[in-house]
Every structure is written in C-alpha cells, then in structure tokens.
C-alpha cells in the first residue's frame, strides 16, 4: 500500500555495491510517478524530464576510463560527468507550449554527478515540489538547482510571445574541488527547446496560494541526534561495509541528523526508505517544511534534517548520491528496529 501523502516523482536504478555508476552509465534507470487522487493543482499539460549525461568514445561506446588513469581519478573526485546532455534520452528535444499556457514539469536528475542549475531565459519558474511531492506553496524563482537524485516539480508559465523559442539551460554551478574542477565548468549547456506555437495566447491558470499544507515534524519529539561528517569518499571516516551496521534507530522514533560537509565539494546526501524535512542550513532555518529524501550539502556547509522512522523496519542505506562516491563506499547502513 502506498501511504497517503507520498504522491510525487520518484526514480529507480540498480544499486549493486561498486557497480551502480557503471550500470546507470549504461542507461539502467527510470522514473516512477505516484499520483495523488486529490492532487491540488489544476489539470494542465504534464511533462516528465529525466536529465542525464554521458561521455562517449569516437566509436560511440561509453567512455569509462582505465581505473588506473588520471582521467579515472578525476572521475572519482568529481563524479563522472559527460559532455552530452540528455533529456529523456534525447539531445536537445523540443517541448511545445502555447503562449499563456502553464505546464507542470516533473524533473529527475539521473546524472551520476552533474548538478543542474536550471533556468529558462526570461521565464520565472514556479517551484512547487521536490522529492517528497508538492510543497505547501509555490516558490517563484529564476533558477533551480537540482542535485543528483533530487526531483523537482516546476510550473512553467508560457510568458513568451507566440512563435518564439527559448532554451532550458543548465547554468554553471561550482560544486567542485579546485584540484579537479573542469576547465569548462563555467560553460552554460543547453538542455531543450521550448517552442511557442503561433496560436493566440490563452488565459493563464490560477495557481492556488496554498497547494498542500505540510505539517512540520516537531523537534520536541526528537530522541536521538546523529552527525554525519562527509569528506571526499567517506562518511564519518568510514567506507561502506555490507557486513556492518553503522547506525541503529528505534522504530517509531524521531531523530535529527546533522550532515556536515567538511570538504570543498558538494555532496548530495540521500537516505533510503524515509523522507525527511530539512530544518536549517548553516543554522538558517528553512522557510517552510517540505519532504525530501536527498539534500545537497554544499561544500563546507552543514544541513540538519528531522526524520521519523515510523515504519519500515530493516536495513537502509544512506550515501552520497554522486554515484562514483557511492561506488567507492561513501555510504553507510542504518538499521531501524
């Protein structure tokens, strides 16, 4: 049974230890949409956009370097990025829109390492959802950063002129350590074309002020706090051991996890099995509660989230979702019992 309140955009991929990055690089991934029977947004055109990148040799095969090479080392540090960017397996596809129309885009970052900073020139986006479904309210923004494994829901409003064309771009985002920062990291990259039809504009939809009220978890209920210190390839100085349980939590309890990134590179932290609510980033409270299962922890920053282990006893992984880091063991085991 799918619990009420968990409607949202999810994705799946294989997770064998040390092999995940390779298998995702080969294309083993997909999206899973859970729709709410009482979805609060008005009916509108919906698009699913799975973002992915890859790198190829001249003969068209996937470029996975010799593990002893400097290139492999750089791939390990940065995570393997590709110079070919795909949306739903296509390079620079086109999405049609009519002037005045509002579209609901569900976006999945399925890239091993590339973090997308999404923007459409001249278009203010309405950020309405994340990993755990819709927000309480829409957030107007010019750009949205989507780290690895994160999902976002965005309302794209057709504010362009009939017949015009604009581009969804991935803008530069410096998530890198200085030693291996790519020389072309400041290069914006095009993802897709948004093509306006020649039709007359339609009247825009009304977007409700309140979309989905989300009850914040109460820190007063917290019984345990944990710290996860992230360094380059390690969580709390350790790498993954399938035979080891790193953390034990009690079923039904509420905890606060502090995720400290001690190094100069972003690490998207992902917890399996449970959604959480970010409390604050570097001590600055998040503006409103929302559900997530992945949170990007920027270089040298600290994020605290609150999580309730209200079901699903068993062993769950937590890890950096840069797949090359996960492959190398930047991962641990949480047992809920």
């Amino acid at each position, binding site marked *: 049974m799918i619990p009420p309140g968990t409607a949202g955009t999810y994705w799946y991929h294989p997770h064998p230890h040390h092999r995940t990055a390779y298998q995702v690089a080969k294309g083993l991934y997909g999206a899973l949409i859970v729709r709410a029977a009482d979805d609060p947004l008005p009916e509108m055109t919906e698009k699913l956009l799975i973002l992915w990148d890859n790198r190829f040799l001249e003969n068209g095969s996937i470029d996975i370097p010799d593990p002893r090479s400097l290139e492999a080392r750089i791939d390990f540090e940065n995570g393997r990025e590709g110079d070919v960017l795909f949306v739903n397996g296509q390079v620079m596809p086109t999405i049609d829109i009519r002037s005045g129309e509002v579209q609901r885009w569900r976006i999945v970052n399925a890239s091993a390492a590339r973090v997308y900073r999404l923007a459409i020139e001249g278009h203010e986006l309405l950020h309405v959802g994340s990993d755990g479904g819709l927000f309480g309210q829409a957030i107007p923004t010019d750009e949205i950063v989507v780290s690895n494994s994160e999902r976002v829901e965005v309302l794209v409003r057709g504010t362009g002129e009939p017949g015009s064309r604009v581009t969804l771009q991935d803008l530069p985002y410096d998530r890198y350590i*200085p030693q291996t920062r790519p020389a072309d990291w400041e290069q914006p990259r095009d993802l897709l074309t948004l093509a306006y039809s020649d039709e007359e504009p339609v009247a825009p939809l009304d977007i409700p002020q309140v979309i989905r009220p989300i009850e914040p978890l109460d820190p007063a209920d917290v019984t345990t706090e944990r710290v996860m210190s992230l360094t380059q390839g*390690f969580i*709390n100085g350790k*790498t993954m051991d399938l035979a080891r349980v790193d953390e034990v939590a009690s079923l039904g309890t509420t905890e606060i996890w502090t995720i*400290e990134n001690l190094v100069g590179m972003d690490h998207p932290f992902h917890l399996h099995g449970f959604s959480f609510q970010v409390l604050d980033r570097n001590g600055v409270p998040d503006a409103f509660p929302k559900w997530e299962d992945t949170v990007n922890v920027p*270089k040298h920053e600290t994020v605290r989230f609150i999580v309730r282990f209200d079901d699903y006893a068993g062993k769950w992984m937590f890890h950096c979702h840069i797949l090359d880091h996960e492959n190398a063991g930047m991962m641990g085991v949480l047992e809920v019992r």
Partner: protein
Amino acid sequence: MPSSERAPLIRRIFLVLTLAVTAGVVAAFTAAPADPSPEQQASHEQILRGRQLVIEHGCGGCHGGWDNPEAEGWLAGLTSPAQEFLIGPCAWEPGAEPCFRTRPRNLTPDNTTGMGRFSERQIFNSLRYGLRPGETADVEITSNVPGEGNFPMFPKYMAPPMPWNAWRHMPDEDLWAIAAYLKHGVKPVSNRVEDSEGPPDFWVSAYTEEVYGPYPAQPFPTDNEAIPPASVDREHVERGRHLVIQHGCGDCHGGLTNPAAPGWLAGVTQPVQVFPVGPCLVDPAAPCFMMRPRNLTPDDETGIGRYTDRQIFNAIRFGLRPSTSPDAEITDDTYPENADLLAPGMVWTEKRHMADEDLWAIVAYLRHGVKPVSNAVEDSDRPAEGWESTYVDLNIGTYPPPPFPTVNEVAR
C-alpha cells in the same frame, strides 16, 4: 617596513623553501604498523609532549601564531590572504604556470572548520604518510602499495609546503602526541579556510622517493656521512642525525630529507636553493634580501669546522651567528648587547625550543657524522641594522614557551 608587512614576508620564506623542494615528497616507504592510540587514552604528558613538538617543529609558522601558543590565531589556519603560498614558477615569475595557492589549514579541533571530526589516527596518517586527513579513511595503514593494506588506491597528499616528508621520520609516539595535542590540548577556533589548490593527481607525481629518499631513511652512514671517532658516542650522533632529518634541515641546506642525496647539508650548490626575503615578496619592485643556506658540513674552511660546538649550539638556541658570537655559554649576563642574529630563513625561533640534549646531538652529528665538503657559500644579504627588530615584530614568543595552558589551550 611596518611590522604588519613583515609577518607575511617571513611566512613566504617557507614558500620559497618549499619551491626548492616542490618536486615532491615520497610515497614509497616501508610502512611500520602504527600503534593504535584511542583518543580517550591521551594523557596530560602526551599532550604536553605534543605541544613541545608542535612548537619546535614550527607548525605555527604557517598555521598561525608562530612559536607562541599565546599568540592570536595559534594554529587556527589562514586568516589573511597574505598567508597564502604560491606554489610553482609563478612564485618567481608573475603569471607563470602552473600556479597553485596553498592555504594553511585550521589545526584546532573545531568540528566543522578544523580537526575536530578527524580521528587521531587520521592525523597520525597525515603526518606519517602525507595523506589529507579528511580524505583518507580512519584506518591503520599497513602497506605502501596503493590499494593494499589500507593505503589509498589514489593517495591524496597534502599540498606543499606542508613538510610531512620530514615529519614522517618522527617516532610513532611523537606523531601520536602531536595528534593528541591538536585534538585535546588546543581550544577549537571556528575559522573556515578556503581549500588549497593543486594538480589533479594531488601531488602524487611530485612526491617521489627519487627526490625525498626512502622512509625510513637509509642506514647510517651513507656515502655523505662519516663514522664518528671512538671517542664520540655514536648513539648520540645517530640521534642527531635523526633530528636533522625529521626537522628538515636538508630542505634548505641540501639533500632534503635524504642523507644519501648529493649535496647533503653542503649548503647552496644550485641556484634554486637561494631564496629571497623582504618586501619584494609582496612588491616585486621592492628590495630583496637573498638567503644563501650555509654549508653545515664540518669543513674547516667553508663549513662549520670553523666554529666550536658551543657556537653551533648557540646559533640554534639563540639565533646568534656563530662567526660573530662568543664561544661561551649564553646567559642573561653573557647575551651579546648587540646580538647579530641569523637571517629569518633559518628557523631558529622554533628550533630553540628543542631540549639541550637534542641540540647537542645535532651538533655532534654535524661535527662527527657528516663528511666535510668544501663548498664556499656567499654570505646571505642582510639589512644594515641586522635582523633583531624583525623578530620583535614577528612576536615569536618567549623562550621557554609560556606554561600550558595558555589562553589558546585547554587542560583536560
């Protein structure tokens, strides 16, 4: 020159020293299993020993506070861009490539900006193997082969000028003591230091055994060394040799940390060993004082053979130039009225804190354990008024150091 300018200038000395050795550090060694040192076992004595080692090895020279645990910013890492080091030819030639900036880290036990989240073993591994503590697993390392015995498949070395290639020669218990002091004897200071830059191989190709010699060092005596006469305690001489290696005397005076290397302690034998001190390090158009490390071999004409053991001792303990200082025990009464001090390139302000017996051991090694090499080194440049005011401005602290704990330290 205002004192505020002098401190960064002197710090940059260490940069230039490093540039002389930037070719690398050694990744090859015979790894001795390290004794685990659970953090709860750190004793007061161990912390005090670690403090002593931190002071005499000059950690504060780069990481803040010089040799003075009372100084502001003690071990708190870079607090001003002037503390950055330029690594590469750009240090001499503006705009030259490659050019990397090294920024000394916060060594205090602050959780998010310092060493607080790193274990003593990670700190031990950083000093013994040069591995960046935050990017190396908290495990005992038992091999020097990448991917084996917990030695990383892709070792990530600390950026020059961190002189771990010398520090690694310290005994295990000394490295554990330093780790204990940093974790338990220093107050945490929140000071986030921007990451150092470096090549994508994290200096692997730079730190080579060919440049820095093996770990452990070759047995005594190498071809550059002499068997001491029967009248001299050989154990004392070998103790001095160990100290000379672990304090990196050869980084300036020749041979780096390898007693078998050409030019071992023979002073300047190649132009790269000459380095500038002075306002030119901030303003290329300003004057420079060129430092020319001396010949430390016991050659009578060109080396330390000209001086007495006492004069050499006094040079390290008090910074007194042996050629112009008396052959006498120095006390408050006998300290020269117009002291002629060694140039700041010589890090006597930290070495003075070594125990008497350690300094005498170094003297014994230089006198009896090294073969004389005839190599006349031109005098270093110096200001007409000497260097004394520079040391005052640097706030190098007192000798002996202030009692533990200072305002920057914490007793358990």
